[in-house]
């Protein structure tokens, strides 16, 4: 039985494509970006987390356990028994039809707003067969679909999933392969090759660039990115996504170090300058993904 591992379904998403959307976050990612908003999505297996701010110290967990950054020796029954929901499972196995039925509950809002469903992650291509099936069923229902990918995956997987996506949101992080590897753990060759190939077969691709101060917001990288995007035929839109330290608390919860501690979001003036770099090359550019 085909199932997917989903860690969150976010209704009323307004920044992951046009209109009012439901975004499905798949679990598992081949990259490990320091700025990741959803570090709990990186591992491809279900895990447990303990949200200390919700914990009422009911006595089911020991003090030592509560002090430990990671959850050990606890199972689904403990999650069920936790009165406040502080102990939570991250990652739920679900069949395509069940997921589609669930997200279609907001169909009337998709219809009214020109919105739809975005599959994000994690990296959706890690679970390409499932994601492709979900996208196919949604498209058959007449729903606008978007695939939000980092592009790091097998080309047939990307092509197969993108075939059922009305829109592809494609991340570009760094143009220099060595810097890309240092920041994300993988080189960007596959990502850039896949993008060129995808542009040959897919009519609607939006490039999404997270703007991370000190990591990729230098002129050299931004200009290289703009030149590259300009060189790929058919791409008309670029979204600059300003860094936000929302991931920091989640890193701490998982007992992980947050390498970007102390980084502040880019200033509006800098974002406007960066946006101009793209606009100068004839690319429709937004800040924040809001049309």
């Amino acid at each position, binding site marked *: 039985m085909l199932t997917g591992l989903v860690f969150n379904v*976010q*209704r*009323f*998403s*307004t*920044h992951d494509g046009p*209109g*009012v959307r439901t*975004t499905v976050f798949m679990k598992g990612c081949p990259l490990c970006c320091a700025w990741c908003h959803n570090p709990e999505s990186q591992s491809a297996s279900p895990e447990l987390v303990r949200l200390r701010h919700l914990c*009422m110290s*009911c006595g089911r967990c020991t003090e030592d356990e509560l002090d430990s950054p990671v959850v050990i020796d606890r199972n689904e029954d403990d999650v*069920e028994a936790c*009165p*406040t*929901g502080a102990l939570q499972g991250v990652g739920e196995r679900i069949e395509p039809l069940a997921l589609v039925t669930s997200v279609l*509950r*907001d169909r*009337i*809002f998709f*219809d*009214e*707003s020109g*919105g739809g469903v975005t599959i994000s992650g994690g990296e959706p291509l890690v679970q390409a067969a499932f994601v492709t099936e979900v996208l196919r069923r949604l498209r058959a229902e007449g729903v606008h679909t978007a695939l939000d990918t980092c592009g790091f995956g097998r080309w047939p997987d990307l092509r197969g999933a993108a075939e059922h996506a009305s829109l592809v949101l494609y991340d570009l992080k760094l143009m220099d392969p060595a810097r890309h590897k240092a920041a994300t753990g993988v080189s960007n060759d596959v990502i850039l090759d896949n993008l060129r190939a995808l542009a040959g077969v897919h009519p609607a691709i939006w490039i999404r660039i997270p703007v991370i101060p000190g990591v990729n917001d230098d002129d050299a990288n931004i200009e290289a990115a703009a030149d590259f995007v300009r060189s790929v035929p058919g791409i008309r839109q670029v979204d600059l996504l300003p860094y936000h330290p929302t991931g920091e608390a989640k890193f701490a919860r998982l007992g992980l170090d947050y390498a970007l501690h102390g980084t502040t979001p880019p200033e509006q003036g800098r974002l406007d300058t960066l946006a101009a770099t793209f606009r100068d090359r004839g690319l429709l550019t937004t800040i924040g993904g*809001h*049309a």
Partner: protein
Amino acid sequence: MTARTERLRLASLDAIPSISGERAAITTAFYKAQMGRHSTPVLRAMNFYAICDSKTLWMGDAELIVGERGPAPKAVPTYPELTCHSAEDLRILDSRPKTQYKVNPAVIAEYEREIIPFWRGRSLRDQMFGELPQEWLDAYAAGCFTEFMEQRAPGHTVADGKLYRKGMLDFKADIAKAEAALDFERDPEALDKREQLRAMSIACDAVIRFAERHAELAEVEASRTQDGARRKELLKVADACRRVPARAPRDFHEALQYYWFCHLAVITELNGWDAFSPGHLDQHLGPFYEAGLAAGTLTRESARELLECFFIKFNNHTAPPKVGVTAAESGTYTDFANINLAGLLRDGRDGSNEVTRLLLDIIDEMHLLQPSSNLQVSRKTPDAVLKHALRVIRNGYGFPSLFNADAVVEEQLRQGKTLEDAREGGCSGCVEVGAFGKEAYILTGYFNLMKMLELALHDGFDVRTGKYIGARTGDPAAFGTFDDVFAAFEAQVRHVLDIKIRGNQLIERLYATRMPHTFLSVITDDCIAKGKDYNAGGARYNNTFIQAVGIGSITDSLSALKELVYERGDAPLPRLIEMLDADFSGQEPLRQRLLNKTHKYGNDDDYADDLMRRTFRMLFEAIDGRPNTKGGAYRLEMLPTTCHVYFGEVCLASADGRGEGQPVSEGISPVQGADRHGPTAVLKSASKMDHIKTGGTLLNMKFTPALLEGDGGIDNLHSLVRAYFKLDGHHMQFNVVTAELLRQAKADPASHRDLIVRVAGYSDYFCDLSEALQDEIIRRTEHTAF
């Protein structure tokens, strides 16, 4: 705003609410001299005439629209013939920290010397409480329900378009014709009808006299002023007051002045709750606006200034304070006048026009507490009009609220109104639906759903008052299934509703026979044709509404009982009831489970939402269609005003995890904080109720300002509204403010005096709200951007 309206606005904001003893003095003197000499309707009309003929007039510096109910702005008269304040009441009003009314010691002395001794035992309220049975008094004291009419007259009424086509002299001609047609041979009620018609004719004379006195005053002022421009204005004011309301208005200015005199007449004769409302103001003014522009006698700017003057008049009219004075049921200065915008014309076309836009701009700019305003959104309402309103809403004052005009029509068709009357209807008060100018739609009181479940879990015994209030539904230990629990809950609902309705029938008849509203009857179809008063079934349509409160809390409580007791077997029912009675003392883990691990309304979760629908159906069947005393029927509404705080105070802890005395949920909104899947899930849950079968539902939502930023934010909100209305949702309103700002305002009221928030069906100054209500609004779920 112009320099004039800016000044008038500030004067209105700065005016301190006070109690005026003038109306009480005139009325008491009149009754002493005239009681027993006339039939009741004629006596009432003559008293109204006496007030119009002798009350102190007010003509503010630079005013273009004139007339105050009291001797000055925010000087509020009293209505001792309905309910007579005690000296202690007046002293408390004068000194309480919130929603204070200044009372001059001379007024208190006059009350002690003349007013109280005369009205004690004679006021309608005293008569009412003498007649109401003990079972009603007990249930009322236990907080099972409230009663709107125990101290304020039946209100919730709205003007229609005929006012702008007919003057009082035309109404008098209709009245004379009706009187001439009376058949004293065959109609046993002919004499009663004649008295009623004569009273209505006197009421017309009263308001004409009132306007003439204003004309005289304006002429005197004009002769005195050295300012040539002001002299011209005063002469125009005098000219308007000579014309209206005796005859139909000729221009935009006269149309506004005409409505305003009618408004004052309605709220001077009796203290109806809600005050009175102009209905589809934009539709009514549209033709005058267009004609004025075409003739060159009006510009957009001059029309706007007149409308601003008109708005300030509403803000000057603070609600008459209640007696009993804890004001727990509704502690607010607002008197719930509510202006309808857009909507549909009688012939079904889109009703929005240039005046709609003008009014939206004024609402945005003036930030006044009163009047309330709402946009009636139909399928035909242009997106641009709705988005214009949403941009006003985004600025965060809670105005205007939004209604589904197509649903409002359908709701009224279900009640048997004609299509045209339904379209000319709309919403007033908070969210209540009525056929404007043709219906007496009376709110009779809030109904405490949570108390009904509490009674079901205690065999009808009310722990707080120590009395058996409800039906004896048996020891809950014997409830073997969830259906048994629900059956006991239903039995309590029906038992207490019977008590309430028996009391209400009596109250309706007291108003019908002893407190007719003669002027309101003149302008409400078909009171003249029937020769019957508004309060006695004279209106074309007569609905009596009961407002159920706490659907979110009751759904979550039923859901928790069903799941924990009957499906998972976590605790037997008697054990759970013990814990609730002890307010979860020593049982915090259980309370947390109830809060966090059960199905909750507001999450598009059918487990909970099906229980909401089951409860709603049961309520509807228990209420809808029961006959009232006026040839009409009882109907169900789902709105709280501020009663969810009071109802929570009188309830023990509940199975949804709510602590003893804490507020219950408001309107049809989810329990504060229980909705965890965003606004679309809330709207889906709320839409599973059959709104068309109600006379109004109220849904509050709170958004962070960030969510609505830019055109994209407006587009998203627009989609939410359109989708909810496509699903037959009745109403929605928004607070666009962060919880953080509200916390700051609570801590530092002096710096946040002007912070206006949406409460429930109306907006109010945050700092004027009770602390319990402030906390409740802070706790409402804040929808943020993702």
